[in-house]
């Protein structure tokens, strides 16, 4: 028998020198603290992210209360500035990124038929460092001031002379820590995907969620380190009085900060979008009962997005006075990136065409995601048209845009994924009834909150303002947005309640409640510690489909197949 075939019997080739030490077995709290099991680590990532989601959500509601009427005095501008900074920071670094990393941590080894990730102990370290980073960022609260220069912390406002309280220092250190954790997770996922796929799983037989997580991990590797460099330089300026970004004073450059930050910041938004795209590519086909339309194009468009994501960062800087040539080049690149994104949208929609659609919660969220993401994508293309950006950047129009893609897109995609995989993780189905309440309240609340913000931006309302003058329609539209936010808040509560209720009382799920096709469904729900007793043969992207429908099974060609199975 070959080396590979031995490992096939064992279920994977993730080499643990020792079996799980006694401390980490079982479900006691000590087992969670000391675990190196990707499933437990994934769950810890996700639970932590949900906690921070609550925090970020409360921050959002506080902002919306303050903005409900003109000249309100519920919050001082200093309080508001702290809160909007923390809202952005929390949602991006402590919610969306880690929740997708958690989901990937849980699913990727299962989906490729491995026993764990390539570096289980590094995995655990990465989680705890991430958690520490999140705590450090909020620890600043004890100094009397959280970070307050916005989540992108532009210099010179973020320099010591304009922000002398230590909130930003904590923010920087905390972000460097979460960054280290994130990079560790990315290295782990990549090594796992490169090395530990089941026998027979060629690149073209890999689930699309795994493809997207692979690309996301590559983006993380090359975007997070520039951010770390920039953060170190800013900390140097603030604490050691260095001169990187101190314009006006000593030859430093405020614009350099923006280049460094957005070189990270733009790929960052794709780090937050691609996993959701991966979820869509899993959920839509299963609930349409037919394969994804255009697997190769969906995978390929992900690669294109990954590459292009590093070539568009200046579109966040169109209004700072760079040359026409620079603006034009980045305008073209930013328009170009809409093409592969559109390809995905079209492929998902066409997967549904002539399918047999099960209108369960996962598909409902997926369908809403498509429409909402298209709206966000459209306004994105508008921003790529430089003169339109020159009017609308830094206004509520861009606040609307970003929330349509990140919430209407990524969060709805995430919800689809949670309803889909909750049974696998917990062994129980989520309540479909609560799910529908959650869905409709979310659709109504989300769109009510953010659609009117397009109009506010067109009416000249600038962003990051703690209040606004009583100009025509500003008050009404802001009030509508606030009401929508509370409806959305209720939707989120329904979702959290659904999680808790279903965990205790949900219908037992069984191995494969959705009649799905990828390897994670070829084991129990939840899976045993070592993931698989046995693996089905992998000859296409849908191993379980091939097993259950041998007459319809198709072999995806692999480079070394001599003939069909």
């Amino acid at each position, binding site marked *: 028998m*070959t*080396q*590979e*075939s*031995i490992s*096939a*019997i064992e279920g994977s080739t993730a*080499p643990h020198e020792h079996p799980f030490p006694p401390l980490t077995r079982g479900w006691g709290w000590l087992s969670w603290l000391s675990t190196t099991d990707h499933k437990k680590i994934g769950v810890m990532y996700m639970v932590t992210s949900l906690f921070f989601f609550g925090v970020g959500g409360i921050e959002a509601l506080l902002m919306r209360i303050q903005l409900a009427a003109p000249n309100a005095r519920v919050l001082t501008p200093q309080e508001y500035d702290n809160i909007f900074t923390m809202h952005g920071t929390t949602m991006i670094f402590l919610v969306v990124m880690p929740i997708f990393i958690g989901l990937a941590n849980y699913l990727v080894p299962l989906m490729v038929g491995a026993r764990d990730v*390539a*570096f289980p102990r*590094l995995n655990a370290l990465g989680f705890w460092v991430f958690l520490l980073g999140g705590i450090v960022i909020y620890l600043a609260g004890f100094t009397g001031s959280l970070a307050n220069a916005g989540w992108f912390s532009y210099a010179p406002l973020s320099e010591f002379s304009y922000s002398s309280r230590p909130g930003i220092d904590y923010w920087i250190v905390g972000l460097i820590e979460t960054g280290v954790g994130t*990079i560790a997770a*990315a*290295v*782990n996922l*990549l*090594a796992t995907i*490169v*090395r*530990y*796929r*089941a*026998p*027979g*799983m*060629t690149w073209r037989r890999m689930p699309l969620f795994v493809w997207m997580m692979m690309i996301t991990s590559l983006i993380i*590797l*090359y975007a*997070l*380190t*520039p951010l*770390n*460099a920039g953060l*170190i*330089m800013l900390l*140097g*300026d603030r604490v*050691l*009085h*260095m*001169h*990187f970004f101190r314009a006006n004073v*000593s*030859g*430093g*450059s405020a614009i*350099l900060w923006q280049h*460094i930050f957005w070189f990270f910041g733009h790929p960052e938004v794709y780090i937050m979008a691609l996993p959701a795209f991966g979820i869509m590519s899993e959920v839509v086909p299963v609930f349409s009962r037919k394969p994804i339309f255009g697997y190769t194009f969906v995978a390929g468009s992900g690669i294109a997005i990954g590459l292009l994501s590093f070539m568009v960062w200046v579109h966040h800087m169109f209004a700072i006075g760079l040359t026409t040539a620079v603006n034009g080049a980045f305008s073209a690149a930013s328009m170009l990136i809409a093409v592969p994104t559109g390809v995905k949208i079209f492929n998902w929609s066409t997967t549904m065409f002539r399918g047999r659609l099960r209108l369960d919660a996962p598909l409902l969220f997926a369908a809403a995601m498509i429409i909402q993401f298209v709206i966000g994508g459209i306004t994105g293309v508008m921003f790529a048209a430089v003169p339109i950006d020159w009017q609308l950047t830094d206004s509520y129009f861009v606040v609307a845009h970003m929330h349509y893609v990140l919430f209407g897109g990524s969060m709805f995609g995430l919800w689809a994924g949670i309803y889909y995989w909750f049974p696998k993780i917990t062994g129980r189905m989520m309540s479909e009834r609560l799910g529908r309440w959650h869905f409709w309240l979310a659709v109504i609340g989300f769109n009510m909150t953010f659609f009117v913000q397009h109009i506010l931006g067109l009416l000249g309302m600038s962003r990051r303002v703690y209040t606004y003058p009583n100009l025509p329609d500003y008050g009404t539209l802001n009030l509508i947005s606030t009401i929508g936010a509370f409806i959305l808040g209720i939707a989120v509560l329904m979702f959290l309640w659904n999680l808790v209720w279903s965990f205790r009382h949900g219908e037992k799920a069984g191995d494969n409640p959705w009649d799905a096709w990828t390897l994670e469904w070829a084991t129990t729900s939840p899976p045993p510690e070592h993931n698989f007793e*046995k*693996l*089905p*043969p*992998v*000859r296409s992207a849908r191993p379980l489909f091939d097993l259950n429908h041998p007459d319809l099974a198709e072999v995806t060609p*692999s*480079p*070394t*197949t*001599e003939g069909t*199975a």
Partner: protein
Amino acid sequence: MTTANSAAGAARGPNVNRHKVGMLFFISSEIFFFLTLLSSYAYLSGAFGNLPRESLAVPRTFVFSLFLFSSSLTVWLAERAFHRGRHGTFRLWMLATIALGLVFLTGQGIEYHELITSGITLNYDVFSSAFFTLTGFHGLHVITGLIMLSSLTGLSFAGKLGPKNESALATIAYYWHFVDAVWVAVFSVAYLIFV
């Protein structure tokens, strides 16, 4: 369900060791860290004035750089000895690598000392901020590499390093070559191009 010899053509990823894969991905990520510091250095260089030319010792630093570059050769020779099972030779070349790395760091130390005593401290101006940060982080990476090399050498002396640890040696060697390559870039940018 599958048995050992599953589908014809069990083509999966390259049969590379996970540690090597992990280190290579990590190194590729660190490259972008240094690219950021290097491009920031270049971006800010317009405000440096004559300071680099007046205060940096180019020829001397070049000589010290040669020590670092030759340490890549010695670590390669160490690996070769290891593969041939000649552990005594292996340890010798490892010690040589570490010594060469230390000499390089000493050179950096001398350079820093001269700058600081002539008033160009860490936060003196844009040039000093950029220079110390760029070379300083490279230096930190060198120190990390030296620690790892020393650990391996120590384990070998204690008789605890054998053929099964081949991947540990390989990954640390990758890291060391990376640190070397970064210095090529840093030296070129800080001592040759923007001086």
